[in-house]
C-alpha cells in the first residue's frame, strides 16, 4: 500500500469511527429555551452560519407553501467541537444549501428552533446537530 493510500485509508477509518462514536452533547439550557413537546420539521435555504460557542447557529429562509411568505428561522445546534466530533466541518453546510431540519420549537413562539438532525437535501446526508436535547 502506498503511503498516500495508507494515509487515506486511516483517515477514512478514523472519520468513520468518529461518526459512529459521536458523543452525546449534554448542555443544559435546552428547557430554558425550547419545548420538547413541540417538534418541527422545516425545509429551507441556508442564509447564515454562525460557528460559535457554546452553540452554533444557522439561519434558513422557509417559504410558506400557501402564502409564499418567506420567514427567516434561526436554529441552534451544539458547540462547534461537539459538531466536529460528530463529523462536521465548517464546510458541511454552506450558504445557499437546501436543508431539512428536525428539532424542537422555541418556548417564546419566535421562528427559532433547536436542531436535532440536519439533512442536506442535495445528498440526503443526515448530520446530527449535537443538540442539547440529546441525539435520536
Amino acid at each position, binding site marked *: 500500500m502506498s503511503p498516500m493510500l495508507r494515509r487515506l485509508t486511516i483517515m477514512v477509518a478514523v472519520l468513520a469511527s468518529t461518526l459512529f462514536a459521536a*458523543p452525546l452533547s449534554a448542555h443544559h439550557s435546552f428547557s430554558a429555551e425550547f419545548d420538547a413537546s413541540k417538534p418541527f420539521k422545516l425545509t429551507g435555504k441556508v442564509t447564515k452560519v454562525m460557528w460559535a460557542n*457554546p452553540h452554533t447557529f444557522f439561519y434558513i429562509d422557509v417559504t410558506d407553501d400557501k402564502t409564499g411568505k418567506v420567514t427567516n428561522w434561526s436554529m441552534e445546534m451544539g*458547540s462547534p467541537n461537539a459538531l466536529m466530533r460528530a463529523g462536521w466541518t465548517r464546510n458541511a453546510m454552506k450558504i445557499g444549501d437546501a436543508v431539512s431540519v428536525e428539532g424542537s420549537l422555541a418556548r417564546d413562539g419566535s421562528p427559532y428552533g433547536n436542531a436535532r438532525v440536519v439533512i442536506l437535501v442535495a445528498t440526503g446526508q443526515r448530520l446530527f446537530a449535537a443538540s442539547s436535547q440529546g441525539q435520536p
Partner: protein
Amino acid sequence: MRISALAIAAVLAAPAALGAQWLNYPTPGIPRLADGKPNLNAAAPRLPDGKPDLSGIWQGWGQNGLFFDLSKDLKPGDVQMTPWASGIQAQRERRDHVDDPLGFCMPPGVPRIDSVDQFKILQTPGETVFLHEAQVGMIFRQIFTDGRPLPTDPEPAWLGYSIGRWDGDTFVVDTNGLRDGGWLDTRKGHPNSDALHVTERFHRRDFGHLELAITIDDPKAYVKPWTGKTVLTLLPDTELLEAFCDTHQQTLEHRDVEPAPPEPPSPPLQSK
C-alpha cells in the same frame, strides 16, 4: 488514474482532518488490533514506578444519564437531603433546571466537571492534571500528589482544592473548599454546600475504561454520605480542541424565564 483520483481525495480530506487541531490523529503508542483499531480491552498501562498510568483523553461520565441525576442508580433512601438541601433541590427541579449556572457559561464544580464533554489526564510525579475541553471553556484541575494536606479553612472555589494518593491500583482524589449552593447534577439539581468533601476513586480497569466511584460527604446537605458509580471511556485517536464560551449572548437573547427566588445559604454546621 485510480491512484491520482485517490490522491486528490486525500488532499481534499487532509485540510479538514488536520485543520481542527488534530481532531482525528492516530494516538501514538496505544495498543491496536490487527485491523488497526485501538484495543480498548488491552491491559492498563503502567508507569516505571509500577503505578497505573491514567493518561489519556476520557469522555466525561455524564453520557449515561448521571449528568442529569447523579443518584439515578441508587435506591430511594440512599440520598437523604437535609431541609436546606431539599428546599433548594425542589425549586431547581420545579423550574426545570433553567437556573443551572452551567447554562450561563459558568464552570461546573467538582465532581460534575468530570461529567461534561471530554478531558485529558496528565500524570506527573507531584501532580496529576485534568485538562477539560468543556463547552463553557477550557478548564484545568490540579490534583496534588506531593503529600500536602487539604486546606483547613479554604477560600471557596468552583473546583475547590484536590489532593491525590494511591490505594493499591486506585487513584483516590479528595476535594474540599467548594462553593456553597453548587449543583452536583443538572435535571435533579442536587445541591452541595461549602462543607462538601468529595472523594473520587479512579481505577483504570483496562486500557479503555476508567472506573469511577464518587462519594458525596456533605453534612449540611445530606444526612449521610452517598456514592455514585460510573465508568469513563477512553477517546483514542483524537486531541482536545479549543473551546471558549465566546458567543453566549446569542443564546441568552432567546431565554425568557422569570428570575428565580434567591436560594438561601447553607446553615452553620451542627456540631455532633
